[in-house]
């Protein structure tokens, strides 16, 4: 799939922007603070209804405006879809596809698929478990849109249950009478979420190993994934065994129920839900040790990159190339990793790249260039730069 056109209004620093896009690589070039990342962030928003930089919507709306609009023409399966999202912080967003409003914004999820790689992704390796859970769940929803409902219901039940546990500690008495009811919801939804996550980790693991080998070069440690759960049946964090038969949602729900019963006293004492997918973690292994805490800075970057390339490969294997978005990453990578990334980016149906200077971007990706300056996005005439001229037709070929 690819975007043929992108428009934003009152989004971040943009009053408005209107950009025609083509398949192949497009590089957005501009000095810092001109709004390059804001444009690719808008593309990411269409895919996840969230930003890779902030968790709330308010910062996405231009200062002084009440709403932001992102509109894109998407080519998918030889059809063109017009996707529009109206971002209303504090109120419900409105989403339209081909001018027809969707009853719920989350029904958009899965339509526009992107894989976004940005400096923030280092948190996948070094950050808190919450980062990795969000990563897993976003990818889940993009592959199986139905799970967006399961995920948001689970979050809601969790909030209700935590609120109950907190008050139960103070009030005691009858307050706990309803806990069983919330347990029922929590374990059923939690079982579904766990089953989906386990399947995803198993699907993703071989691609991660392959991508890491490609990125880090010969002789590097082997990368693997594991799932560490508060429910022992779901995983202990060890590298996934491809031969393992994964437990189903009902089996996991039963295991979760058992575990919730065991921890009941602790939960009441501490006033918070201690078991469930919201306490789990995706474990990244590098050779014999977990990557977190052991991997060097360079290895961490390679791992983050390998995970994102694995996502791309996984979604591609599902049938359609996702849009690859590379936000300001080339400057952070050494030449070997740049080449590995450029290789995938070149083969993608559409790649959107941001960079402060075009020299940071490998020559093979210098197809279409868009200059971002003074609140304007201008497509530069296709004159080859010195680098792409030096590598012959590659730059044009990629475009």
């Amino acid at each position: 799939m690819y975007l043929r056109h992108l428009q934003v209004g009152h989004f971040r620093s943009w009053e408005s922007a209107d950009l025609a896009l083509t398949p192949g690589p497009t590089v957005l070039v501009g000095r810092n603070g001109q709004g390059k990342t804001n444009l690719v962030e808008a593309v990411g928003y269409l895919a996840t209804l969230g930003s890779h930089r902030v968790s709330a919507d308010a910062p996405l709306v231009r200062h002084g405006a009440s709403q932001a609009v992102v509109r894109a023409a998407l080519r998918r399966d030889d059809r063109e879809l017009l996707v529009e999202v109206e971002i209303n912080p504090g109120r419900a967003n409105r989403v339209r596809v081909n001018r027809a409003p969707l009853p719920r914004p989350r029904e958009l999820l899965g339509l526009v698929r992107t894989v976004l790689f940005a400096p923030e992704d280092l948190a996948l390796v070094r950050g808190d478990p919450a980062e990795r859970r969000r990563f897993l769940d976003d990818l889940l929803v993009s592959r199986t849109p139905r799970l967006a409902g399961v995920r948001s219901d689970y979050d809601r039940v969790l909030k209700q249950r935590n609120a109950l546990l907190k008050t139960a500690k103070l009030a005691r008495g009858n307050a706990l009478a309803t806990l069983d009811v919330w347990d029922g919801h929590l374990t059923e939804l939690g079982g579904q979420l766990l089953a989906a996550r386990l399947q995803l980790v198993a699907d993703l693991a071989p691609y991660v190993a392959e991508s890491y080998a490609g990125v880090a070069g010969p002789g590097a440690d082997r990368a693997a994934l594991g799932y560490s759960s508060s429910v022992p049946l779901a995983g202990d964090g060890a590298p996934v065994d491809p031969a393992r038969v994964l437990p189903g949602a009902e089996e996991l729900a039963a295991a979760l129920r058992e575990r919730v019963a065991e921890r009941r006293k602790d939960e009441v004492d501490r006033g918070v839900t201690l078991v469930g997918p919201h306490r789990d973690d995706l474990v990244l292994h590098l050779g014999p040790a977990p990557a977190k805490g052991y991997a060097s800075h360079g290895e961490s970057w390679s791992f983050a990159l390998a995970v994102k390339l694995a996502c791309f490969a996984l979604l591609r294997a599902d049938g359609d190339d996702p849009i690859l978005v590379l936000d300001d990453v080339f400057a952070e990578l050494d030449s070997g990793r740049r080449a590995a990334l450029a290789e995938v980016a070149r083969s993608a149906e559409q790649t959107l790249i941001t960079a402060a200077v075009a020299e940071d971007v490998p020559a093979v990706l210098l197809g279409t260039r868009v200059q971002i300056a003074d609140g304007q996005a201008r497509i530069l005439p296709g004159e080859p730069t010195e680098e792409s001229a030096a590598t012959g037709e590659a730059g044009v070929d990629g475009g």
Partner: protein
Amino acid sequence: MYEGAVQDLIDELGRLPGVGPKSAQRIAFHLLAAESTDVGRLVAALQRVQAEVRFCVTCHNVAETEQCRICRDPRRTLDVICVVEEPKDVVAIERTREFKGRYHVLGGAISPIEGIGPDDLKVKELMTRLMDGQVTELIIATDPNLEGEATAAYLARLVGPLGLAVSRLASGLPVGGDLEYADEVTLGRAFEGRRRIDA
């Protein structure tokens, strides 16, 4: 910002559910321009609601006398009780003219986030009604969202030992709708609750 009284009115209106700042402003200026008899009627209606409306001692629906119209109606059967969250749900079900039993209005749903537990709802009162031996069936018609489902599950457990027939309203496809427009949860529920067609 407007001066004194106008701004006060806009602020008060803006506190009502479903009324945003723009609507509040519109309503305020509509009232300013309206005939004083019209405004008087509105004021009187508001004051009457405060002074006269009470809650039915039996079912906790809104009423003007000790018991609501439905509880006083001798044609309604005494053996079936339908539990709803709010008085507006009674009105909605009444529009169907399908239900001949009586109601019980809980006054909300269990929601720990908002600090609402069973003790804040008319659950004890419901249990008292169910104990009197006349009631044989309980229909739980709370909203089909997480809080409504939790309330339903809680009531079902609580009522279980009494040996009544307890049912939950079905979830499924809207009549006159298109299958393709149903969201996946509704469609999933509709599959679960499918009915055999007797030929």
